[in-house]
């Protein structure tokens, strides 16, 4: 049976400028400047970090296992998010959310938080050293950094079933949710310089399944760090997507993926379309399928395991039917309430029909189309060659966060989230997951928190011992369950006392 699809997105932002062009230093400045604005800095508790544990049941080979950095700038925000330096990028890991729409809101709140952090850092820097952040996934020169989605999945689903069921979605969804880029960056990118492709990330994937995230990237990542009760839950760590500027794209990307995972829990893997015979090749080939903008008819087909030839559009169409079947059978309650489910299904359908019939009408929701129209339009107007650096500048500046520079903000993209909601989400946690508990602890007792992480908060009451409060179930610690407890406690001591009763 399908379980509640708690979910969220973590994004590593591209970073330019900073003193001595040192991206690690610049990222630290961004994070600590924001922490200073909030007047607290919360350390991360590394107790539960085991990125080397593989969902296939073996520990990863140490030389390929991700390394946990323990000394970098880090804080936890009152909205339940984590803001920190990951490698050489500032990263915003949004709080756990209950629905795709809420997770979209907290992703957008992350853009605003990063923008404020950038401003705060720049206010104490020479103009020559000013820092600029980009919500994108590659530098056009072969370096990629991630936007990772996380979904709570029942431990009862065997990992092999997740791989088999989800690969068709993961290789084809870039048709609707790709952020687009100019040219290729790897030997297998398959694009001439100046040629457009649908996805920033797709060409960087080399394996079907694996533990790594920085090299030999796999379509399905096996990192088995549930940050929750491992007997009951998995956290599916989805690393194959692009960062979206389009809020509708983020929403439907999360919504479609959550519904399909819930459908897998409900029906098992046999109802899913047959995966491509060569998924890595399929993902790259689909990224290069630009036939949509010329004819609305795909010319890129890949063979599935039964020898049938399938386009990315046909996969998405079949997966939409499957999600609709799941909604008909269950109401989709594992993912969201009825109204939101209807919005996911309608928008997903509109994107599919739009791209097949008249791509212009969905260029207000599909990032790669919005960017492509801008680039081609500019090229034609100024009679430029496809290699003009001004076109590359447009592609990069699409992802700039500053209102005065952002091209995405000028692309006429439909906004799903009201400004006032976004402002609130920068500071207030989602009410209906354990993120509420984490965020409220930080808001009310910052000076008594020794450290925090996804599944616990560690209190220091200056009594000689640290007190860890575990939160092993992401669906608990909600406002309903804990608000009264918080309100009745004037101090952290009182709060812990009541908690332990």
């Amino acid at each position, binding site marked *: 049976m399908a379980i509640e699809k708690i979910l969220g997105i973590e994004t*590593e932002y*591209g*970073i*330019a400028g900073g003193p001595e062009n040192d*991206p690690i230093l610049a990222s630290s400045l961004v994070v600590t400047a924001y922490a200073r604005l909030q007047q607290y800095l919360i350390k991360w508790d590394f107790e539960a970090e085991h990125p080397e544990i593989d969902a296939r049941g073996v520990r990863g080979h140490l030389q390929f296992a*991700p390394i946990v950095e323990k000394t970098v700038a880090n804080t936890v925000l009152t909205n339940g998010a984590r803001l920190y330096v*990951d*490698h*050489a*990028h500032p990263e915003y890991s949004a709080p756990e959310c209950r629905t795709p729409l809420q997770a979209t809101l907290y992703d957008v709140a992350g853009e605003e938080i990063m923008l404020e952090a950038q401003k705060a850092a720049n206010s104490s820097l020479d103009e020559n050293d000013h820092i600029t952040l*980009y919500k994108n996934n*590659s*530098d*056009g*020169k072969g*370096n*990629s*950094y*991630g936007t*990772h989605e996380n979904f709570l999945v029942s431990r009862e689903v065997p990992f092999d079933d997740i791989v088999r069921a989800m690969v068709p979605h993961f290789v084809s969804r870039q048709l609707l949710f790709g952020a687009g880029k100019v040219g290729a960056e790897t030997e297998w990118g398959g694009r001439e310089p100046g040629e457009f492709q649908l996805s920033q990330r797709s060409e960087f994937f080399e394996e079907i399944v694996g533990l790594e*995230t*920085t090299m030999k*990237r796999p379509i399905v990542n096996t990192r088995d760090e549930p940050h929750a009760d491992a007997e009951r839950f998995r956290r599916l760590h989805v*690393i194959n997507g692009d960062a979206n500027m389009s809020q509708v794209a983020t929403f439907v990307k999360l919504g479609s993926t959550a519904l399909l995972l819930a459908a897998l829990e409900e029906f098992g893997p046999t109802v899913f379309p047959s995966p491509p015979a060569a998924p890595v090749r399929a993902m790259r080939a689909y990224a290069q399928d630009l036939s949509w903008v010329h004819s*609305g*008819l*795909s010319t890129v*087909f890949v063979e599935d395991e039964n020898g049938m*030839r399938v386009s990315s559009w046909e996969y998405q169409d079949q997966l939409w039917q499957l999600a609709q079947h799941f909604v008909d059978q269950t109401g989709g309650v594992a993912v969201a309430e009825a109204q939101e489910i209807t919005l996911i299904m309608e928008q997903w359908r509109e994107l599919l*029909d*739009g791209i*097949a*019939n*008249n791509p*212009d*009408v969905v*260029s*207000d929701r599909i990032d790669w189309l919005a960017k492509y*129209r*801008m680039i081609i*339009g*500019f090229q034609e*107007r100024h009679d430029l060659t496809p290699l*003009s*650096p*001004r076109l*590359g*500048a*447009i592609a*990069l*500046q699409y992802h700039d966060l500053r209102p*005065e*520079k952002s*091209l995405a903000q*000028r*692309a*006429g993209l439909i906004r799903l989230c009201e400004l006032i909601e976004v402002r609130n989400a920068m500071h207030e946690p989602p009410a209906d997951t354990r993120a509420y508990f984490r965020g409220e602890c930080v808001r009310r007792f910052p000076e008594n928190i020794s450290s925090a992480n996804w599944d616990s908060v560690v209190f220091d009451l200056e009594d000689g011992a640290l007190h860890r409060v575990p939160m092993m179930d992401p669906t608990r610690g909600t406002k309903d369950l804990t608000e009264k407890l918080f309100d009745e406690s004037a101090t952290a001591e009182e709060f812990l006392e009541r908690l332990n009763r």
Partner: protein
Amino acid sequence: MSEQERIQKQRTERSEATQEAETSTGAKSEKLKADLDELLDEIDSVLEENAEEFVRSYVQKGGE
């Protein structure tokens, strides 16, 4: 179904769907084109001045 037949089928389905949708999306499509024209007017003033240097110097370390 051969690929040719499939494309033919897509084409037929598409033209049926297109006819239905044409009246409602036609107006929207025109508006989007007008918006794009406006945007292209604006891009020049917003675009980073030295595009070549801007694109060249954007180099990132890998992440994740």
